[in-house]
């Protein structure tokens, strides 16, 4: 009864909101930890796409996840050697990767 009253007067903040918030953060980190194999696959597909537009240094390509306290970013460092001439028009064929392990956590 006391608990009920203290909740009534002290706002309705139950502990589940803490749980949800903590869970959300921990999942952002969990979901962003890709296996080395997946990172390699991601790299290869990136190279495939980007070389349609420009010449890049494939050896120097770096893909990493940058994790801070409440967000995760995919950082790619791609050294460009040269840009192809006449790339005003985008080539067709969009591709989207599917699957949980590959998305950088849920958006808020």
């Amino acid at each position, binding site marked *: 009864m006391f608990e009920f009253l203290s909740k009534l007067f002290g706002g309705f903040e139950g502990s589940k909101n803490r749980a*949800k918030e903590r869970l*959300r953060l921990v999942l952002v980190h*969990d979901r962003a930890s890709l296996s080395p194999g997946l990172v390699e696959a991601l790299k290869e597909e990136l190279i495939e796409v980007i070389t349609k537009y420009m010449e890049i240094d494939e050896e120097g390509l770096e893909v990493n996840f940058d994790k801070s306290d409440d967000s995760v970013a995919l950082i790619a460092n791609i050294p460009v050697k040269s840009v192809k001439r006449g790339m005003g028009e985008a080539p067709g064929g969009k591709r989207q990767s599917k699957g*949980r392990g590959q998305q950088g956590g*849920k958006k808020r």
Partner: protein
Amino acid sequence: MGKVIVITSGKGGVGKTTTTANIGTGLAALGQKVCLVDTDIGLRNLDVVMGLENRIVYDLLHVVEGQCRLRQALIKDKQFGDRLVLLPAPQTREKDAVTPEQMKELMKELREEYDFVLLDSPAGIEHGFKNAVAGADHAIVVTTPEIAAVRDADRIIGLLEAAELYDPQLIINRVRPGMVRRGDMMSIGDIDDILAIEILGVVPDDQDIIVSTNRGEPVVTNPKSRAGQAYRNIARRLLGEEVPLMNLEERKVMHWFKRLLSGEAQ
């Protein structure tokens, strides 16, 4: 051709074995032919939950190694006879004694004979999990409304996708409506927001589970139990019937009113 469903969770102790026993028994009660397979090598428990521990002669390993015929190892249920059978896990051998390839072969054989083959997966994401997942074509993920269980469920959903088991379904176990109402337990909606997979069922926390496990009789056969009702609903949903999720809240209030009206002070 039957369906092979793996019941898994990542975290231990969320009720995989109880869920497997109750869904299997629920399906058998609806006239289906069901085979339960315990894949928790070295830590088998489905036998005791089903109350069949005294009848084990052969186990999963004997079957895959060809030391007995499949039929010899299948233990008939006390109530449903050969409509509900259990293939127990070996209790003494090494965890990697069985391979995913052997499991696939075994599932091929079982799905010829049974409408549903339910695989009770061990906790964890290692060898035993891989075995359990190998021959399955569908997955049920069990969680409870706790942070550790939901986190592990999320991880398992990712691993299931990696194993090409898409669209797993979720069972939220041990829900306590009173705590949800007070804001001290994540609700079905909260968990749905986070995991975002189809919810197959919601099972309330129920003391009847402990009583029925003590007796070795799955709670699904107890018509008075609320958890039993939840499992009966799940079995019907697996057969394609549209059954709305149990409204835990409403029943609680009704129960309270009834007690109030009958002058029962407690």
